[in-house]
Structures are given as C-alpha cells and as structure tokens.
C-alpha cells in the first residue's frame, strides 16, 4: 500500500499542491473531491448538516420536542407545524431535529468504541502474527458469526429493566462492541499488506521496537483505511439504532427516528401520514450520506478496495 497523505491522494492531487500552505492545500483537496466524487461530496454535506442539526438542535427546533399541544393533535401540515404534529400534538419537525442527536450520539459513540478496539486488535494481531494471530482470529471468527441484532435485543431488553442504567450508554456500548470483530479483520488485512514493506524492515534494522513500529510506521499507513471503515460503519450503526428504537428497545424520553415509527404511533399514521414518512426519510438520508461519503473516501484512498462492500452485520 502506498503511503497516502491528504496532499497526494490519487485522483484529487494537483500539480504542486504540496507546495501550497496548509489550509489552502486542504481546500484544494476538498475542491478536487467535489469535482471527482460529486456523490461522495453530497454525502459529506449531508453528514455535516446532520452533525450541525444535532449540535444546534435547541436553536433550530421551533418547539420543545416533548411539548404537548393537545388542541393541535395529528395536524398534517400547518403554518404553526410545518411537518405536522403527532397524537399528543408534539411538533414532528422539532422531534426530527432532536432525533438527529440520538442518531449522532449513538453513531459516533459506538463507532468510536468499535474503531479504537478494532484498531488495537487488528494491528497487534496482524503485526505479531504467529500463534497469537491464529488464536485471536479464531475468536474474531466466532464473534463475527454472532447474530447481532438478536443479541442487542436481548441485551437492551434486559438492561432497560435494571434501575439506574443509562440506556443510551448501554446501546452505544453494545452496538460498539458487536462491531469490533468485523472491523478488526479489515484493519488486520491492511496491516498484513504493509508489514513486509521495505520501510518497516529498515525501521527494524535501525533498532526500532515493536511498539514504535506499530505506532509510528504501521498506524499512519492503515489510518486512512480506519477512517473509511469508521465512516461506513456509522451508516450501519445508525440503521441498527433505528431498528432497535423502532422495536421499542431504545432510550425513552428522547425522541429518536426509529422510535417515531414504532408501534404506538402506527394507528395514527393513517390520519397523519407524515408520521410514517418523515422519520424514515431522515434515517435513509443519514445512512445514505455516510455510505456514499465512505464509498467515495475509500475510492480516493485506495481504489483497489472498490466493490468489496462496506456492510456490517
């Protein structure tokens, strides 16, 4: 694998871009990304908009997400409530905006856990090799073959009955831990590809220890792939969170997109079809954003990986 830095990413590099000063260099890389990967750039915009919505939810949302307005129940659309209201008159748009918070929190939280541990396991296992690698990989095999959503349903269904448990945190932890195996496999294979490279050998020869090689030589080379895996993983996590919330295993009290589609809203969807429509569009758009951005990132960073899919679970 060639050493990739932002300045010489294939497809978006420009002549003498490396000579430019740093902020300009990034701006040019971004412009190239937009030109060569328009769909991926659209994904990036969706992702940034989503993060912005989650952070600034209180100032964007027209109403409090849980504010009841019993005189305006099941409004389809009006001047006061653009996207209508639900069965207790809560503003759908405000709930959608706050729903971005749950998706983003669970998404980034779970992916952070997955990425950190998957990188550790994948890098050490790939670099050490030998019996250590074999043992770890057999464990990863078994871990990967677990029925993800089933385990999550069981875990969250039991944990939410326990007093004082933060369900959001439990969800982040569970989804994050389940994703480790698959991602570590990906990172390990990238490590195997660079492990026998001449520059690693020369580092060895000049007396660098295992830890030093891992941190300063291998990590920078697999970092782009880690970034891609994390981006693609985010889409999967958001989908998993929506499915769990939809089934009623998500955190209560906070509006989330999956929860808005769940059973207790079902009978009102005929009266207010927006209840069925908008949350799903939000989920789809968010997952789509992360997927196409991740795909484009992967194509730019390593075109050979194209088509190998970014599916989790």
């Amino acid at each position, binding site marked *: 694998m060639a050493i990739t830095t932002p300045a010489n990413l294939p497809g978006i590099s420009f002549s003498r871009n490396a000579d430019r000063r740093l902020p300009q260099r990034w701006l040019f890389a971004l412009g190239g990304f937009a030109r060569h990967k328009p769909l991926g750039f659209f994904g990036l915009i969706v992702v940034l908009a989503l993060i912005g919505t989650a952070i600034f939810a209180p100032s964007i949302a027209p109403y409090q997400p849980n504010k009841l307005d019993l005189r305006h129940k099941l409004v389809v659309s009006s001047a006061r409530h653009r996207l209508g209201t639900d069965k207790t008159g809560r503003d759908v748009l405000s709930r959608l905006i706050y729903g971005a918070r749950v998706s983003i929190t669970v998404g980034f939280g779970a992916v952070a856990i997955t990425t950190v541990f998957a990188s550790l396991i994948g890098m050490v296992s790939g670099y050490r090799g030998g019996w250590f690698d074999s043992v770890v990989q*057999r*464990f990863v*095999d*078994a*871990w990967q*073959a*677990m*029925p*993800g*959503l*089933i*385990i999550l*349903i*069981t*875990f969250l*269904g*039991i*944990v939410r*009955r*326990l*007093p004082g448990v933060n369900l959001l945190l439990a969800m982040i932890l569970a989804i994050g831990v389940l994703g480790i195996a698959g991602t570590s496999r990906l990172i390990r294979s990238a490590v195997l590809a660079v492990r026998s490279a001449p520059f690693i050998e020369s580092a060895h020869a000049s007396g660098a220890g295992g830890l030093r090689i891992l941190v300063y030589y291998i990590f920078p080379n697999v970092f782009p792939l880690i970034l891609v895996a994390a981006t693609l993983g985010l*889409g999967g996590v958001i*989908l998993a969170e*929506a*499915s769990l919330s*939809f*089934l*009623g*295993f998500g955190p209560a009290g906070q509006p989330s997109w999956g929860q808005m*589609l769940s*059973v207790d809203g*079902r009978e009102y*969807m*005929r009266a207010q*079809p927006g209840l*069925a*429509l908008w*949350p*799903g569009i939000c*989920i*789809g*758009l968010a*997952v*789509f954003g992360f*997927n*196409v951005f991740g*795909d484009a990132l992967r194509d730019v960073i390593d075109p050979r990986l*194209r*088509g*190998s*899919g970014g*599916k989790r*679970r």
Partner: protein
Amino acid sequence: MSPPHRFPVGENAVGRYVAQRLMLAGMTLVIVSLIVFTLLRVVVPLFYADAVDLIAGEYGHGDPALTKQLRHDYGLSNSLPSQYAGWVGQLARGDLGKSLFNGRPVSLEIKDRLPVSFELGLIGILSGLLLAVPMGVVAAVRQDRWPDYVFRTFAIVSHSVPGFWLAIVIITFGSLWFNWAPPLKFRYLQQDPIAHIKIMLLPALLIGLTPSAGLVRIVRTQMLEVLRQDYVRTARAKGLGNSTVIFRHALRNALIPVVTVIGLSLVTLIAGTALFESIFSLPGMGQYLVTSVSKLDYPVIMSTNIIFALLIVASNLAVDLSYTVLDPRIRY
C-alpha cells in the same frame, strides 16, 4: 474478492477443514450462551437478588411459594459454574425449558414458529437473488451506461433505506390510497393456503430488499472481473453468441463469491425477521424473542438466543462447505 477462509491443504484436509469449521461453530455457540447467561445470572443479580426477584418486582410480589419454586427450578442457589453447566446439560438433552408465563414448552412453541421465520427468510433470499442477479449482470455488461447507473443507484439506495420503514410506508399509504391493509389474522399454509400467501408475500418480498443491495454490487464487480478473463475471450473467439458467453461462461463463475454474500445476508435476514414479524404480526421466531424479552420470560430468552445462534452457525457452515461443490478448483 477472495474466498473468506484459507483452505487447508495436505493429507485428510477435508476432515481437518470440517473439524475446524465445527470448532468455530461451537465457539460461537459458547460465546452467545455465555453472554445470555452472564446477563441473566450475573448482571441482573447485581441489581436484584436474582432473575426471579426481578420478575416478582415487575408483576407485584406474587406468591412467595411460587418464587421459591422458580428459584429451585432454575437452581439459582447453586454456584454460577454449576448453574451454567446445568443449563448446557439441559440444552444438550434437547430440553429448552418452559415459558414462565404460560408454562408452554419452548420446544413446542419453536416447532410452530420456526417454519414461519424460515419461510420468510427463504422467500426473502430468493426474491432478493431474483432481483439482484439480473441487475448485477446487466449493470456489468452495460458498464458505465445508463442501466449501470440505474442499478447502482438502486443498490446504494436500498442499502441505506431501512426495509422496515418501506413496509410501514406501504401499509400506511396502501390503506390511505387503495384501502388495502395486510390481513390481521395469521393463517398457516395447511389451514388456508391462499390467505397464507396473502399474508406472507409482502413481508417476504420486502425482507429480501436489503440483502439485494449487497448482492447487486458483488454480482456486478464479479461479472466485470470474469468478463475480462481469458476463457471468456476464448469463448467469444470461437464464435459463441453473446448470451451463451454471458450466462454459460461468465455468470456461473461470477456467482461463486455471491454465495459468501448470501451467507452474510442470512444474518441480516434473521435480524430482519424480528422487525418484519413485529410489523406484520407474524408468529415467527423474531416476534417470539421480542415479546419474551419485553416480558422477561427468561427461559424463553435463553433458548431463543441459542436457537438463533444455531441457525446462523448452521447456515455459515453450509455456505463454507458449498464452496467445494460450486468450485471444483478448491481442493482440500
């Protein structure tokens, strides 16, 4: 895309390979059983006296004699390792336990429910394949022209849009615009075949949509790869027709890695049954798990998890072994 596992070579390699896969299957089962066991017998007791106490709290402190009986039945006074050993022993004897709420043996319940989920998954994967394979082939043959773009867009979109949401949208707008609603009462195939098909068709078709996204992509990339191979050029050179080359020579070889993706999709499908069965109120395995988890019916929780793990492990095993049949080049 390379095969997912390294195939061992040498003497008696088939036996070693099968043994290796079986060991992996066993390990997955052990991990799943340990997770579920730890949750119910280690984590729950951190908060309550034990799992029975949690249920007693949930449903108002009922009959003390009953709770005592339950504790005795589940051997909660024994040490943890012996509890685990007892449970595994029970499972090994085929005893899946009884529901805490209606006393119905889990094995009987599963006998009714497994065929429903299995049918759902089978029709799902078949419809997914019927959709994805032609799309992938056409996209590859017409690379970088509009069919390619259309089908790739389909793959990206169906990869992102949650299938359960599509089901909700179809139900909502079907009833709004066409006054159509999915039947509420479930009928088994042997009771009323036509009503059964009416109930199962929509969820089964929708459940295949999500896996088909991955399938379109892999069929397309595989076809592109295979179409560049020498033997395809040879086939064309000896004057074979375009369709013969594509279907006889290219597609058959391109489909081998697709089996892996089907194997991976099975996990998605099994997870999907939990979602679709609760939307369409189908009495399958997923619905059983969801309702028993929300009732904390823990003998059922433990057994259904094991059954799900067993299903996945068995299908993975089948996928691994099917490689030998599909690709004679792979020798052990």
